[in-house]
């Protein structure tokens, strides 16, 4: 248990360091929120009440986080496969999932930069400062948000290990996740049958916790609980999938490209 935790924390720090030196990824986290926030601005030009403002800024920031997590996780894993690191990670006597989880967590954490750009940019764009009603709860909510994005990314990563071209699928999931978790537009606007699906998307609860902490009209704590619980389920499911997919990669010899 201690070792597992150490492996995740150290691995997370290592990948955070490695990937935060990647100019392309930095570009994604800093620029995507600008694009999304601009889109949101034109979508909701009419309603300029506080709630819309907060939702739009948070949403654009979280979209940035999720974009980074999917595209970067796929490209990071692809690169590690090409340069032979993936093999070295498998060859090490640490359960493989403990070496993959830190990658997606680090990328989700790197995405927090976009929270800053998102908030600042929306403030400038709408010309109204975003006020956070419950700063403590807001800061705390960022962590389960990262966790949920990281674990959702991990679930996809299990597929990357087995299916080399699944990075495309990763990109395809960029949009559904934004929509389902209410980052782009409020879930209430979507068809009714969408809402139950969104309950199973962990970032929905993270988004909702952040919004409530920012607006201060409901308690974010039960959302945080749901977010963590779902993340744990994702982790378990991802771990199980990864086991199967890794075995299949060892059978098919697709772990390395050379």
């Amino acid at each position: 248990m201690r070792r597992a935790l150490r492996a995740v924390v150290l691995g997370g720090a290592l990948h955070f360091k490695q990937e935060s030196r990647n100019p392309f990824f930095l570009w994604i986290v800093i620029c995507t929120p600008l694009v999304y926030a601009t889109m949101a601005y034109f979508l909701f030009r009419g309603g300029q009440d506080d709630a819309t403002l907060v939702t739009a800024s948070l949403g654009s920031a979280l979209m940035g986080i999720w974009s980074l997590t999917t595209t970067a996780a796929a490209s990071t894993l692809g690169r590690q496969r090409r340069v032979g690191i993936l093999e070295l990670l498998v060859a090490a006597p640490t359960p493989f999932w403990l070496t993959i989880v830190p990658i997606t967590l680090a990328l989700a954490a790197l995405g927090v930069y976009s929270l800053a750009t998102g908030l600042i940019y929306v403030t400038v764009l709408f010309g109204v400062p975003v006020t956070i009603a419950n700063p403590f709860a807001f800061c705390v909510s960022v962590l389960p948000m990262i966790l949920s994005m990281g674990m959702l990314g991990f679930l996809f990563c299990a597929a990357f290990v087995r299916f080399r071209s699944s990075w495309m699928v990763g990109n395809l999931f960029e949009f559904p996740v934004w929509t389902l978790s209410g980052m782009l537009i409020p879930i209430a606007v979507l068809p009714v049958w969408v809402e139950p699906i969104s309950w199973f998307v962990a970032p929905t609860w993270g988004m909702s916790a952040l919004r409530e902490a920012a607006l201060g009209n409901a308690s974010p704590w039960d959302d945080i609980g749901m977010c963590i619980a779902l993340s744990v389920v994702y982790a378990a499911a991802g771990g199980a999938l990864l086991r199967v997919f890794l075995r299949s990669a060892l059978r098919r010899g697709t772990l390395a490209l050379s």
Partner: protein
Amino acid sequence: MAPVIEALDLHRTYKTTTGTFRRRSLEVEAVRGVSFEIGEGELFGLLGPNGAGKTTTIKMLITLLIPTAGSARVLGRDVVDHAMWVRQRIGYVFGGDRGLYERLSAWDNLRYFAELYGVEPRRQKARLEELLDLVGLRGRERERVEGYSRGMRQRLHIARGLLHDPPVLFLDEPTLGVDPVGARELRAMISSLKDAGKTVLLTTHYMFEADTLCDRIAVVARGRIVAEGTPRELKASVASGSVVEVEVYGIEDDAVERLRSIEGVTAVTVEPRDHAQVVIVQAAPGHEPAQEVLARLDGVSVGRVSSREPTLEDAYVALVTDAPATQ
């Protein structure tokens, strides 16, 4: 004593696809029935041409590839059924400049793998320093790997493979692309690993390296072992017959064919050397082809002629060029 590494009739096929629009699936038989045993403290060499299946064999032994058929044991345990157990006890180093976190320092790279290999946190710092000293990277460990030279990367790989002080080591072309002085140092290091009692499986394309380092060698060609023995035995297997080297200036293919047809000649190879070429003619025991060779080179401008005892490289060339006959 039970062998430390055991390969039992290992087979491995890869499925690949060809073509862009009309995709056809293709089966490559990379390894087709490889068996060998390596005893404790032995340094065993795997030689063979490109694509012979050496890396594939190693990957099956280090649990990165599941054999299509056959089995393998390391330290007495099956590599498929006890993968984790085996991983804890083996080190793997491959040649080339890949396999490192480029944007991180050597220290960060080693630190992470120390953690993954379960080196006790309290011991990590001392162990890393020890290894950096051993591979001669001390003082450069805080620089990013992307700025490292080929040789420095290779040293870093070796340090990584030794982190957990494994009793069994797999070195896949560890001196690939390292300069002569660096390669000599690496060989000294490999030889000291053997002195420390480690069991080592080594692949290389440098014959003198295999000759000086290995206790025993297996020559692999097209997925099969075509010869196995000590370097001396391998040399002897093509030996007694001598090797004639003739320096020539411009030789046609049909002249080479004429040499091949000389009675007792087992292999003829042509190598460029400086501004000339050298024709190397190997003969079976009891044959002295020098006279006949010169006679058949009539019309070709000939330089120095020498006759010598076969080297491991000669043995290797003879074995590998013979290989189609053994299929």
